[in-house]
């Protein structure tokens, strides 16, 4: 599904290149649950951003679903966002002025899905995440864990084939974090959604089935998680 070939990212400053990523080559298959780990500043988030096409690599090629997406025009990228990729953020990034319901609805509106279909999908998600009672509340009326649930529900609304999560539990207490990670695991195993997450926590990484260790921009280790 994802094929990264010799990805490099560096910033040139007065002729001195400061590398963030070097020679990253890896393949992620459909249905995998990958955790990217490493110390702060190792380049984890940058790698995730490149996979999410939010940043462009300075060098190397990137194929998504068999298509070269290393440099992509905006229209095509938006097309991918609408149909294939869901983002989950550490800070949830819900839209403060909109209710839970409207937040989940937003990607569906951009995907131009009919209103009845929209209503049924949202009802389904609300139901699944046990937040039906909260649907008319605003994000700031929810706890962090609940907000992240809404964030995930929103990411799932467009029925993406892959979810990219940047420290999804970074702002949460451990009980809530476990809940979220279990949800991810379930989504991965039952719905077959590919998940790539960046995390600091060894424990969270074990929910997945593969761990990429990154340090100083280089993939040091690529291990399978054995349950």
């Amino acid at each position, binding site marked *: 599904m994802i094929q990264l070939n010799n990805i490099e990212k560096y910033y040139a400053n007065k002729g001195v290149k400061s590398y963030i990523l070097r020679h990253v080559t890896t393949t992620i298959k459909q249905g995998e649950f990958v955790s990217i780990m490493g110390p702060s500043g190792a380049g984890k988030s940058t790698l995730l951003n490149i996979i999410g096409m*939010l940043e462009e690599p300075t060098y190397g090629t990137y194929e998504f679903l068999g298509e070269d997406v290393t440099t992509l025009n905006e229209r095509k990228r938006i097309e991918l*966002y609408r149909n294939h990729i869901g983002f989950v953020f550490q800070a949830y990034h819900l839209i403060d002025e909109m209710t839970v319901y409207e937040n989940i609805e937003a990607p569906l509106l951009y995907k131009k899905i009919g209103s009845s279909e929209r209503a049924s999908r949202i009802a389904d998600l609300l139901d699944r995440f046990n937040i039906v009672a909260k649907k008319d509340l605003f994000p700031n009326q929810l706890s962090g864990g609940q907000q992240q649930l809404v964030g995930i529900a929103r990411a799932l609304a467009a029925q993406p084939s892959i979810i990219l999560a940047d420290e999804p539990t970074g702002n949460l207490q451990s009980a809530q974090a476990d809940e979220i990670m279990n949800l991810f695991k379930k989504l991965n195993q039952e719905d077959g959604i590919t998940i790539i997450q960046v995390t600091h926590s060894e424990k969270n990484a074990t929910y997945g089935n593969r761990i990429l260790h990154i340090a100083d921009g280089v993939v040091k280790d690529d291990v399978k998680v054995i349950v």
Partner: protein
Amino acid sequence: MRNLWKNKGFSLINIGGLAIGLASCMILLLYVVYEFGYDKQYKNYKSTYIAYTNMKANGKTFSWAWTPGLLSQELKENVTGVSNSARSSYPISLLIGNGENKLKNKGMFVDPAYLKIFDFDFIDGTSDNILQNINTVILTKSLAKKLFGNHSSINKIVKLDNLEPLKVEAVIDDIPQNSSLTFDYLMPWKLYEKRETWTKKQGWGSNFCLTVVQLQNSNTLAQVNTSIKDLFHRMDKDQENELFLHPLSKWHLYGDFENGKSVGGKISQLKIFLLLAICILLIACVNFMNLSTSRSEKRAKEVGVRKAIGSSRKSLISQFILESTLLSFIGTVVAFILLEISLPYFNNLLNINLIIQYNDWRYWLTLICLILFTGLIAGSYPAFYLSSFEPVKVLKGFSIKAGSAFSVRKVLVVFQFVFASCLIVCTSVIYQQLNYIKNKPLGYNSNGLVQLSAEGNLKNLQKINLLRERLVKAGAVTNVSTLSMSLSNGGNNTSGISWPGKNPNTSVLFNNRAIGYDFVETIGAKMVEGRSISKQFEKDSNSVIFNEAGIKAMGMKNPIGKKIKWDTGENVIVGVMKDFVIDNPFQKVEPMILYSAFKDNVSVILLKLNPSANVTASLSKIDEIVKEINPDYPIDREFVNQSFEQKFENEKLLGTLSNWFGGFAIFISCLGLLGLALFMAEQRKKEISIRKVLGASTGNILTLLNKDFIKLVAIANVIAFPLAYVIINQWLSAFEYRVAISFLPFSLAIVISVLIAILTVSIQSIKVAKANPIDALKYE
């Protein structure tokens, strides 16, 4: 101060907006001051008055500054409270020359007392014992220079109309432009009586001169007015006209009368300009507030830190006010530069001479007040708003809620756009009205119609016939006729016409004009029935023609062949002419009587150019032939459609001014909107990024951002429309012929304002919409 420099772009927008606003405001104020200064140059202007006559006719009361020649003497001698009084003729364009150096200039005939009432600036000579002798003249400085160059003109002889030798007794400074008195030289009244002998014999029923009156005390005006109201009637039992005095200081601005009472006049236009000036300044201030508060997020931290280290709210407020006053000062300096650059253009446009009175303390005082006012108004909101931030909240990580501050700013933007859209509506209606009047048929064909002023030999009917023959033979013109008044001016009228069946208690006012042969053919007008005055009917001396309005006013059926009485003579109606516009194109055509020109009642010769000949060639032929027949006078000719065009000057001026200042107002409003968009985009950066990641395209984002602004503009339009409707309806009601208010101006206003809003907002927000979403999402 460092702050201003650090945010150069912001400061530029802010100062630029303020400067344009201030410059527009100052130009308008200069103009308003100029107009208010009218006729106030004279020391005694407060106690000087113009005598007006009220005359009832056609069911209306007409008020004129024309009075009988006997009035001045009577007022001076027999009315208590009057200290002085003088007659003057209206300015007449006459030939005045020093040897062969002859010029046509405006002269006035005045009583010697005239020079006591108005303290003109004497450069040479004094006001004592002046104009006593019949052959004397006072020149203005510029005329003296034109006639005599740099030589002294005192005691030299100039010739009036190639006829009267006049001794120059004094030279006075030029009359300021904002004076209702317009003349280039003054001559004694006695000379007028000698030239126009009829004036001597006129009684109390003939109004032909202007009477200026000076009262001992301006407080007694009401008393004097009551005592002189029926003066005409007391002097002559047949006279029903009433007399009143109108202050000199109100002569120019309050020139309209209804039912014999002053009902304003140019003052209303001036009030509009004053309002415009204030509104533009306010808009500029609103802008300033908007832009300042929109940066508050960035400055909130500064406020927090300052407060945390012990700065009081008061000192913060004064800091912000100081900053805004400084900005407004810089804005003023820039405004001055703009002003100096644009003044010549505006002077040219308004055909006046506005200058900045750098050496007048009042001017500086106003300026300082303006700066302080602007600084205070513009700085107040940001000052109080920013200084109210609580330091803890600010330092912890400040985010402005979409709450009160924002809605105040929205109200300000709505206010700006209400103003802008009002102006768009008004301007377009003014233009529509102008076009409507211009395209309204005049009732005659003004194309290729030339008006030649009849002077010297050309006053003689035989010479006119000679001229006609020669011009037609040369192929320069197709028709020649004469008229007793300029075709594009008002003039004589009479209420002395009676007809069988006339109600003796009503009086109907008819314009009366003497016409030459072929008048109707020459101007290209139409006869409704009967015939025109022509050479075939030699005995046309008692035949008259009416226009349709005249026949209607008399309520006459089958008028041809009917007899009417005019003063003492009896006349026969031989024709009815279709109405044509002579004086005011905005009003209905008044009743008119036309009669055959005899002897000397010719003031213009009308020439219809040969349409198949080259215009320049025809004109030079005309000049050549006229010069041969009338060698003593310079050629004075004009195209009728050009002189007609001048009637629209006031309306055109209003249109141009509201166009310009409306443009400025819109431009400044755009800057304000830009500020708001800047703020909004900044505030919603995160949301926009989230939406993009969720799959929103740039188009989606732009729609999202524009939606709110379009809502604001729509609200502004909704408020503006009834307002604009009321204003423009008021303006239109002054015209009898007026364009119907259509949807067009309103839709124009919507389209323009929405378009402008979208453009302004999009320019700003496209940057945000295009930005990489990760930039906003990465940092927490």
